[in-house]
């Protein structure tokens, strides 16, 4: 039960962070939007984006250390690369990801965000169903990994 209380408290902090950015800077705290903004927007309007990202990465590092967050590898490194690419592509194409749609978007009662949240939740649940309950899903990643090891080893 303690775990759930921590989840709720953590969520409250995330909501607070989103509200502070909206009320203080007038911008949505969608992490994909901010990261994409840093990649593309002219440097002059980006200081707040860089500041947000520095805070995110720095504080994430600090609290992972302070709270002694365990590290468990759940995804094969070769799956992480296409997964990361899909997350980046999909988040910018769909105008937002988890934080942008599920917190800021729903918080502003946007219908687009509601549709996006339902869509990516269904897609993610279906994906996990395939990767965890269909046994041979990871065999190809293992095979490529073995082959790479073989080549590098020589």
């Amino acid at each position, binding site marked *: 039960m303690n775990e759930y209380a921590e989840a709720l408290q953590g969520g*409250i902090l995330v909501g607070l962070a*989103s509200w502070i950015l*909206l009320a203080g800077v007038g911008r949505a705290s969608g992490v994909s939007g901010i990261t994409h903004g840093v990649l593309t927007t002219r440097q002059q309007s980006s200081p*707040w984006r860089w500041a947000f990202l520095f805070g995110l990465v720095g504080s994430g590092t600090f609290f992972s250390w302070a709270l002694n967050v365990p590290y468990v590898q759940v995804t094969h490194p070769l799956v992480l690369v296409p997964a*990361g690419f899909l997350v980046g*592509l*999909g988040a910018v194409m769909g105008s937002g990801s988890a934080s942008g749609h599920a917190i800021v978007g729903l918080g502003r009662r946007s219908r687009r965000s509601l549709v996006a949240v339902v869509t990516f939740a*269904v897609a993610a649940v279906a994906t996990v169903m395939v990767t965890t309950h269909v046994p041979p899903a990871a065999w190809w990643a293992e095979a490529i990994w073995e082959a790479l090891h073989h080549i590098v080893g020589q």
Partner: protein
Amino acid sequence: MMGAPATAPAELGVPLPKADALGRWSAVTVAFVSGCIFAAGLTLSGMTQPEKVIAFLDIKEMFVGSFPGKWDPSLAFVVLGALAVALLGFALTPYASIRPWFTADFMLSNRRRVDGRLILGALLFGIGWGLSGYSPATALASLLTGQIDTVLFVLAMLPGMWLAGKL
């Protein structure tokens, strides 16, 4: 009448350039603090651990044994807490009429139409999220925690974002 020199450009109809206002240190500080609180929340709630996200998405576990089974509802509690604060805070912030505390204007999406781009993007994002258990926020928050996973993930995510912006 009074204080005429002090009410310089804005009142004369020559607003400060937007970029200038956004670069002000107060806005930058608020953005930094927001990022810090954001990552603190994600870390405390356990969402930077992909195994917890995948344990939430794995709804089949709900039906193993008595109710929650091995299913982990944590993510639902995170969204519940965040959304409660966001709904309340945003409702109390009059972003239709006045300025934010430290910048010249609000810049938020006002689009309403649900289009194919939104659906396709959300589908692709959902697949990647389900494969890895990482979203952009959680991957960046655990970027420098000393494992290769999030570094690989973020290095792959950036070109994905760049490409989507070009499409």
